[in-house]
């Protein structure tokens, strides 16, 4: 029995609270900083299964989150009212010194959290936000541009306002926040003559409501739908859905007071243009791999040498592709025969060769025997996700380009003495960039399996130089001089980095450096900046510690 994975999953307490008010059929991972580890695994599993999903990061604006706790300290340490105001104004302006740094400098999110969130966004098909304001904040914090964005507002319930109560209060409405988080509001509203309440039970009797949500517009929307007089935090993004609400800066006590007075004197708020889950789903649908008809034949070349279990997994990943016209060319590079393994699979052709010529030689052999319009290479211990082939074929067919590449996730595994593999971590930051012409003259940041190349490009520009240690780099650099590499900015495969038997786990720095020198000599650039970068690259490779590998961004604790 296969258990269906729920479309909507939440990781972390704040994320749980948001997800409770979202439609369960929405394919999304909702995550806050406390849940990023589990969310990462969920995201990888969804990518492996080529299931489209949104990421909804629940990150409170760090300026407000940090500021709140500093405001508590200010009000705790300073007793004079006017001195408190001076310090709070400095805090709101970002000028307050905190432990030797300005508040502006420290109001950022943890770098480790930011790195993992960035990778989660790369794994997702789109960014789901509660407001454009939130999207801008995330873009500022994480520095990523996301191709697909959609807005959704969690549905909240608030009571109908009662208008017949004679004496009503200003209510600070702060679901999910502790009373101690609200001392700034208490201070700001202390000069009001009306009673101020922080109790949710008083909501229905409110003369006006100060919504204290700093990053979530949903409560403001619910309050506006009920017609409360309302003040909202600018950082909440509620202005995108709510009219007639007074707006304040959640760290500036002066604006809180002004907004309360403005809300008391205004007409009731109203809600407009609330985005629906259907709109979000449409955005996700737009990011699905396009169907190319007729589908050109794709040849996937897999060189192999005595790694039968890995080979079976690699081939299985190809045959699971959401693509109707492909062939797998397995080139057994002088190892134990593998033909029997795929005897029943008509789409797999196996060439058992007697002599071991190395991976690059075996790939050249496979390319010679490929029949497809496009050629895809895959190491026998790596895998491609089910949407890799359709996405890259669509990119090549739509653009008419000869080379396309996707992004690759590095999966770190430890092979135990009994042969079992233990997952150690992931990295989705190394093989995620496009090939830029300047970089292509120095080294290429593209994993071999990320590339799909039109077969006639091999005919025009040749295959791999099997004698070259870094033949894949040399080949990419050669092609880049003649062809544009179009970039499918999506993780569509895995490079598995193992502690045993992998080229990168042994000390090959000197060999790699010599190979680069050889490649550079073959391809002089005539550009001083390139030549300087080449010298630096060779020095860098030589000086790497033995056994250097790219460190995982997401490590499993032992």
């Amino acid at each position, binding site marked *: 029995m296969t258990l269906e994975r729920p479309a909507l999953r939440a990781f972390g307490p704040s994320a749980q609270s948001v997800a409770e008010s979202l439609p369960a059929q929405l394919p999304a991972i909702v995550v806050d900083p406390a849940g990023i580890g589990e969310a990462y695994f969920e995201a990888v599993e969804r990518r492996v299964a080529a299931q489209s999903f949104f990421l909804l990061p629940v990150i409170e604006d760090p300026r407000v989150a940090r500021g709140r706790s500093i405001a508590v300290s200010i009000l705790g340490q300073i007793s004079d009212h006017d001195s408190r105001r001076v310090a709070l104004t400095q805090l709101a302006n970002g000028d307050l010194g905190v432990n030797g740094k300005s508040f502006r400098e420290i109001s950022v999110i943890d770098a480790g959290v930011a790195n993992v969130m960035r990778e989660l966004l790369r794994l997702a098909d789109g960014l789901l936000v509660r407001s*454009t304001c939130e999207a801008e904040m995330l873009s500022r914090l994480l520095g990523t541009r996301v*191709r697909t964005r959609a807005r959704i507002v969690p549905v909240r319930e608030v009571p109908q306002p009662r208008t017949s109560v004679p004496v009503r209060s200003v209510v600070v409405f702060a679901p999910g926040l502790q009373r101690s988080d609200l001392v700034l509001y208490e201070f700001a509203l202390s000069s009001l003559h009306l009673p101020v309440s922080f109790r949710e039970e008083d909501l229905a009797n409110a003369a006006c409501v100060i919504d204290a949500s700093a990053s979530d517009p949903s409560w403001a929307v619910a309050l506006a739908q009920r017609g409360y007089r309302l003040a909202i935090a*600018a950082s909440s993004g509620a202005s995108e859905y709510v*009219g007639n609400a007074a707006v304040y800066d959640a760290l500036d006590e002066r604006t809180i007071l002004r907004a309360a007075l403005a809300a008391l004197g205004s007409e009731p708020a109203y809600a407009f243009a609330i985005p629906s889950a259907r709109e979000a789903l449409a*955005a996700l649908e737009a990011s699905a791999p396009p169907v190319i008809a007729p589908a050109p034949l794709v040849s996937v070349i897999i060189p192999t040498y005595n790694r039968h279990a890995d080979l079976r997994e690699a081939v299985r990943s190809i045959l699971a592709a959401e693509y109707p016209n492909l062939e797998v060319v397995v080139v057994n590079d002088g190892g134990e025969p593998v033909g029997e393994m795929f005897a029943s699979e008509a789409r797999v052709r196996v060439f058992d060769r007697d002599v071991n010529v190395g991976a690059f030689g075996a790939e050249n052999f496979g390319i010679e025997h490929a029949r497809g319009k496009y050629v895809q290479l895959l190491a026998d211990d790596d895998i491609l996700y089910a949407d890799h082939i359709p996405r890259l074929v669509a990119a090549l067919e739509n*653009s008419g380009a000869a080379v396309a590449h996707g992004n690759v996730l590095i999966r770190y595994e430890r092979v135990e003495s009994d042969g079992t593999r233990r997952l150690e971590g992931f990295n989705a930051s190394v093989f995620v960039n496009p090939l830029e012409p300047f970089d292509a003259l120095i080294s290429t940041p593209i994993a071999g399996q990320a590339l799909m190349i039109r077969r006639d490009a091999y005919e025009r520009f040749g295959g791999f130089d099997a004698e070259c240690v870094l033949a894949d780099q040399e080949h990419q650099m050669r092609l880049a001089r*003649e062809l544009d590499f179009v*970039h499918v900015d999506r993780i569509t495969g895995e490079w598995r980095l193992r502690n045993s038997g992998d080229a990168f786990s042994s000390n090959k720095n000197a060999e790699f450096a010599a190979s680069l020198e050889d490649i550079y000599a073959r391809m002089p650039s005539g*550009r001083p*900046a390139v030549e300087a970068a080449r010298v630096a690259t060779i020095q860098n490779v030589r000086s790497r510690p033995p056994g250097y590998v790219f460190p995982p961004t997401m490590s499993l604790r032992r």
Partner: protein
Amino acid sequence: MTTGLRAYGEKAQRLVAGFERDLPVIAFDRDGLQEAYTDARERSMRRARFWVLPFLRTVRHSSLLPAFGSIFRAYSTTQLRFEALRLLEAGLIEVNGVRYGHFHSPDADTANGLRALLSLSYGLVARSWAEISRVIALAGTRPASLAVVPLLDPIAPPPVPRTALEGVIIWAPRYDANEVSLLPIALEEVLLPVTVYCSGGDPPPAIKAQFRTVDDSTAQQLANARCIIVADHDDPAAVLSLAAFGVPLAAPVSCGAYEYVDNIALFDYEQIPEIYRATMRGLALSPPRPKGPLPGRDSLRIAAEMTEICPVLR
């Protein structure tokens, strides 16, 4: 005396030409700011509610555009130009005495005028939420109501079917060849042919791309493009109109087009290498897809009407 639409400044008049005349909106550009303020004060004294629709240069980078033309005239080879851009980004060279990272597009007078206008208005309307954020940041004040009203690009021709697969187009018919020169320079190493549609003028020398102005053949050229790079910094209009061609699009993130259209490659002008990267991503994209009907202008009328009603005390 009017309570309806008034536009101040040539740019504002052009952009709201198709708007309904009875909309309670004051539109203005930099040149029309003073007149707009006078109108706003007069309306306020009559207690007439109105929205303000500013067309100001809120994207920091936009004031640097002419400077790029000068840089590319001073440095005549691709290598020197790339090096100059790198140094500019690193803050090691200055433009008119100002470092790249220290550029502020709008002047203080504009910010003050805008703040005063917003304080008199019922709400702020702009072409995208991205623009609203910038206007609010510039003014340093935030009106109680906000709304977006995206416009379409009157220069973009209606779509025609594709007849061939050709090169990359840079769509910049509002900018002269000098102002737009950063884009073809950033794409100098794209191997596909690059064509720039601009408003005219002389481009800096030794640029590989071909410069053209819009003519009868433009629609076919757009339809046959492998990817269209939209130059507009602050207006999603071109993306909204060109999306109908079904050709992959790349656009500056600051234009806010992603709020209305899915599947576009985004770049940030302030990180110049992103222009090349977005082009490579754009080439691989499937056609752009509008998210749905664009927000209409009715909300401006309804929102203002709601507040015209005298509150009923119970």
